């Protein structure tokens, strides 16, 4: 015979009130679990939506960037670097300069930590006479793009396909006028070249342009290791004084050069792209903010809901315990008379409430294990039952609150004078 047996026998004897207490705890715990499930589901759904939206935006931006890249390829380079002594009037008049600079400048630039330009393309251009055809031709020697060494993985792809040694690319007028198809071997300035490509009409100076490998043109023009321009593409960076920044940065690396900007359409496209990107990001931010606000509101509502249910449960358990203590007052008096101290009696009453809490929690868990996976996904279930804080809160708090709810009636009941109880009896 021990106190535990008395507690169990008493619970069996007055199981009605005990079951009502268990139900109160179960409802309380269930309301908490349901609230957590709803919040967890909202959070998970929000995260998924954000992922989808971010993915969509990223794809749109990538598509846009590719589009811009293609557009810019057509537009050409917008930053031109010339030797310092080059007369710009000549540049604007004939499209190229007569002054040259060492080809190694492009390597110097590429190996610097320059950030204001992308894509470096050295070239040597000059208007020449195609003696074999008696035709003026703008001869341009190009090399494959010189990669910028310090960009690592972010290095840009070459914008202009290089022309191989022994090959020639002809503008529209040049191949159309003389009926030169791709693959044909032609003579140009005394040397043979294979036509590698024949451009369609562009309505620009390109139509009378012939492109060759840079080294070939350097040989033909007898300007070894020399170029008369470096074309670059302005970076897509935001700056109030773009050209000023570019000039300043390149000037520090290649002091004997001058820089001009052409084709600002490329920049306008880049700015448009930035604007689209910013708008998209702003939309995502706004969506995130509204969703977070929604979740905060849901959390407040859920917290209030749980608190009200918990308060009602505590009140109910307290009332049930008061009622139980009142109904059991004679037994309490008898036990007091035969030597049960106040602490023994409090232990009996509180233990009953504790078992009420444990049984209520167990019932709520059992119901939740069935219901949560039906209405919500596994992630929600895991976020509630696999998370230590939640699990501890769910396991111990209801029982603790049930004990607290029973505390006052327990103390009041246990401290009653047994003589008074028995005399009244």
């Amino acid at each position, binding site marked *: 015979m021990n106190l535990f047996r008395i507690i169990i026998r008493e619970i069996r004897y007055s199981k009605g009130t005990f079951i009502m207490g268990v139900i109160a705890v179960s409802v309380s715990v269930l309301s908490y679990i349901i609230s957590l499930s709803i919040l967890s589901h909202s959070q998970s759904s929000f995260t998924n939506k954000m992922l989808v939206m971010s993915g969509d935006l990223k794809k749109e931006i990538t598509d846009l960037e590719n589009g811009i890249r293609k557009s810019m390829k057509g537009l050409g380079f917008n930053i031109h670097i010339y030797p310092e002594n080059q007369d710009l009037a000549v540049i604007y008049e004939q499209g190229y300069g007569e002054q040259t600079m060492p080809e190694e400048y492009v390597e110097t630039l590429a190996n610097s930590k320059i950030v204001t330009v992308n894509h470096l393309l050295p070239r040597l251009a000059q208007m020449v006479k195609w003696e074999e055809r008696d035709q003026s031709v703008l001869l341009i020697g190009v090399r494959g793009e010189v990669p910028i060494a310090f960009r690592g993985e972010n290095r840009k792809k070459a914008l202009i396909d290089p022309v191989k040694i022994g090959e020639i690319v002809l503008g529209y007028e040049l191949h159309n006028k003389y009926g030169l198809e791709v693959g044909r071997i032609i003579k140009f300035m005394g040397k043979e070249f294979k036509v590698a490509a024949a451009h369609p009409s562009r309505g620009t100076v390109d139509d009378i342009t012939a492109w060759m490998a840079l080294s070939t043109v350097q040989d033909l023009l007898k300007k070894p290791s020399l170029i008369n321009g470096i074309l670059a593409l302005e970076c897509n960076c935001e700056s109030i004084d773009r050209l000023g920044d570019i000039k300043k940065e390149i000037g520090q690396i290649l002091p004997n050069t001058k820089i001009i900007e052409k084709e600002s359409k490329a920049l306008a496209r880049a700015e448009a792209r930035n604007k689209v990107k910013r708008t998209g990001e702003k939309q995502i931010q706004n969506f995130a903010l509204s969703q977070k606000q929604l979740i905060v509101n849901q959390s407040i509502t859920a917290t209030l809901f749980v608190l009200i249910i918990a308060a009602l449960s505590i009140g109910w358990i307290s009332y049930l315990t008061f009622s139980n203590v009142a109904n059991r007052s004679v037994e309490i008096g008898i036990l007091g008379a*035969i*030597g*049960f101290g106040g602490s023994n009696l409090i232990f009996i009453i509180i233990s009953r409430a504790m078992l009420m809490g444990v049984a209520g929690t167990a019932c709520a868990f059992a119901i939740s294990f069935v219901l949560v996976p039906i209405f919500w996904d596994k992630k929600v279930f895991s976020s509630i039952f696999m998370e230590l804080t939640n699990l501890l809160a769910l396991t111990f708090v209801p029982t603790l609150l049930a004990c607290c709810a029973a505390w006052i009636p327990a103390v009041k009941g246990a401290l009653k004078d047994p003589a008074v109880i028995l005399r009244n009896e």
Partner: protein
Amino acid sequence: MNNTTSEITLRADGITKTYPSGSGTIRVLNQINLELSHGDFVTISGPSGCGKSTLLMVLGALQEPDDGILEYNGVSPYNLSAKDRAQFRSTNIGFVFQDFNLVPYLTVRENILCPGIVNISKDWETRCAELIESLGLSDRASHYPDQLSSGEKQRTALARALLVEPAIIFADEPTGNLDQDNGKRVLDHLTSYADSGATVMMATHDRDAFDTGNKHLQMDNGSILKLISE
């Protein structure tokens, strides 16, 4: 009975107890002086409301008097803390009530064993079995109080009071709700217990029960009118 029993004597000196009543108070016990020794079986008689039950409660360390001294072998239970006083009762005092006051959700055996939960000086199972046997409750040991007759209930209550072999038993009208046979059976057990060296104090309205004791105390208006020793 345990070994401490022979050492216990009860001495009450100037015990006074009042209850509030309306705007004033009622003096229920008035300057009670009393000494009890081992083997005393004191029966108390008197009209209803004369203070018999209150005297048993006060002497049983259940209800503190307003004035006076109560000592058990020099120990004053009312000078102890509530916890120690409860422990004192569980070791030294047994109660038998007219209404039996059994715990309804415990069986006969469990009711009898109840005092043993808080008095852990020994394992009371054997003593419990002996009491069940001697009080004729063997067939009823696993029954609940609402399945018992009045006589069986009172015998269960008596067994519960006797379990820890207290030095003194206070019985308040223990035969009041019993027929003659059952009443006699209870009285026989109380007499036997007093004969073994314990002290028994019993309040009763029953003339035959009153005559059972070896000391007879008559009360009226909270005072002892006379104490007759045989």
